[in-house]
């Protein structure tokens, strides 16, 4: 059953400061809405629980891409189209531009935002494994304080995050340290495009003298939240890519993931495909 739009309130404060004041006020709780590609679907399906929304789509303060020689900072209102068009992201953070190209259709990429993807916290979100692999930092703002935290600690459980009701995700910062790394991103869905993932992996690795010097593996749809496969990374650290290493990494991946059966796939299939994706990446790394 579709919701009656008359039951919902939506305000569009002119500035970020005014948005933060509303989020901090006693009149709430308010839910920020940017491109609407998630919340409007919920509205259409009659399952948008929040009755008060505050629009942040028009805030140019949140829609920016800033680069320094060391860092890239993305405003939370950066759309997937913005991500795909940016030359620095294409060269330094190709996992992110690839993920942006998988995220829905062109029309949805024109509206959907990176901040929305993070805050919506779907375990199947396309862009989040890349942010884990790149060790992104998030800046959260509120009327009373600003805090910067590692993205790795943002998700607490299924669609649960550390974001407080008065806080807004302001920006995402990545260090430009990965030009020497091999990049690997692959999503397996029902079709090549326009399908939510069954499993996705975004990974980075650097080899030295035939040994894996550093490896970072982000994954979607393998637990209740997007995860970094740290146990698997530890197994691979300082190892040559041999049959034994690959077998150990596959076993570690299986032990640290908890895929589920749902409408899109089965736990068994997800576990097998995830291990195969990891193995594909390791084969590609061989000198």
């Amino acid at each position: 059953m579709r919701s009656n739009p008359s039951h919902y309130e939506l305000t569009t404060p002119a500035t970020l400061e005014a948005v933060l004041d509303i989020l901090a006020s006693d009149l709430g709780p308010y839910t920020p809405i940017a491109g609407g590609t998630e919340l409007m679907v919920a509205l259409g399906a009659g399952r948008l629980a929040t009755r008060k929304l505050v629009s942040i789509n028009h805030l140019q303060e949140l829609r920016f891409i800033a680069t320094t020689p060391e860092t890239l900072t993305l405003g939370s209102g950066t759309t997937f189209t913005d991500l795909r068009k940016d030359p620095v992201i294409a060269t330094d953070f190709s996992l992110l531009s690839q993920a942006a190209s998988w995220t829905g259709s062109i029309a949805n990429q024109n509206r959907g935002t990176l901040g929305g993807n993070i805050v919506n916290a779907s375990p199947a979100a396309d862009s989040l494994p890349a942010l884990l692999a790149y060790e992104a930092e998030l800046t959260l703002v509120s009327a009373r304080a600003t805090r910067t935290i590692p993205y790795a600690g943002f998700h607490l459980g299924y669609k649960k995050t550390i974001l407080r009701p008065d806080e807004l995700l302001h920006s995402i910062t990545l260090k430009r340290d990965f030009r020497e790394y091999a990049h690997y991103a692959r999503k397996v869905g029902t079709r090549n495009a326009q399908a939510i993932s069954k499993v996705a992996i975004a990974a980075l690795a650097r080899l030295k003298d035939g040994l894996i010097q550093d490896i970072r593996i982000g994954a979607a749809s393998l637990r209740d939240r997007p995860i970094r496969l740290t146990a698997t990374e530890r197994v691979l650290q300082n190892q040559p890519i041999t049959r034994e290493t690959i077998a150990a990494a596959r076993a570690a991946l299986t032990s640290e993931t908890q895929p589920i059966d749902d409408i899109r796939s089965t736990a068994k299939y997800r576990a097998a495909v995830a291990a195969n994706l990891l193995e594909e990446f390791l084969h590609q790394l061989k000198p």
Partner: protein
Amino acid sequence: MTQITLTINGETKTIEAPPMKRLLDLIREDLHLTGTKEGCGEGECGSCSVLMNGELVNSCLVPALQANGARICTIEGISTKGRLHPIQQCFLERGGAQCGICTPGMILATHHLLEKYPQPTLLQIQEGLAGNLCRCTGYTRIFDAVQQAILKTQQPTNN
């Protein structure tokens, strides 16, 4: 209710509507422009595609208030003075329109694609239209129509 002022196909209109009303419903019910279709209502099928400030969007996912001050172009704004746009003409000639439900969205997605890439490859056409589902044509005739439209839109003085 909130006052929403927008420019629709070149005309400025002010409407009273709930701010969370879908832009799709505002266009169909308040502006009485029924060329924009509803398919899935969840951003998967592209039938409700319109151009908002020149960008392709699914109007079922846009709260009406976010369109305040925006320029909206629907299928009704694509033809000029009763003459079909070359993209529409090509869809007719190449059998790119059958039942017609996806067609307005397909035409707007094609328009947006050709603005970005005047000479798209077949892959770019496929990606540009991937968010627009058609259950009649099998897509081949739509791609043929777009490829013909590439030639036509490049020779505007010859038609």
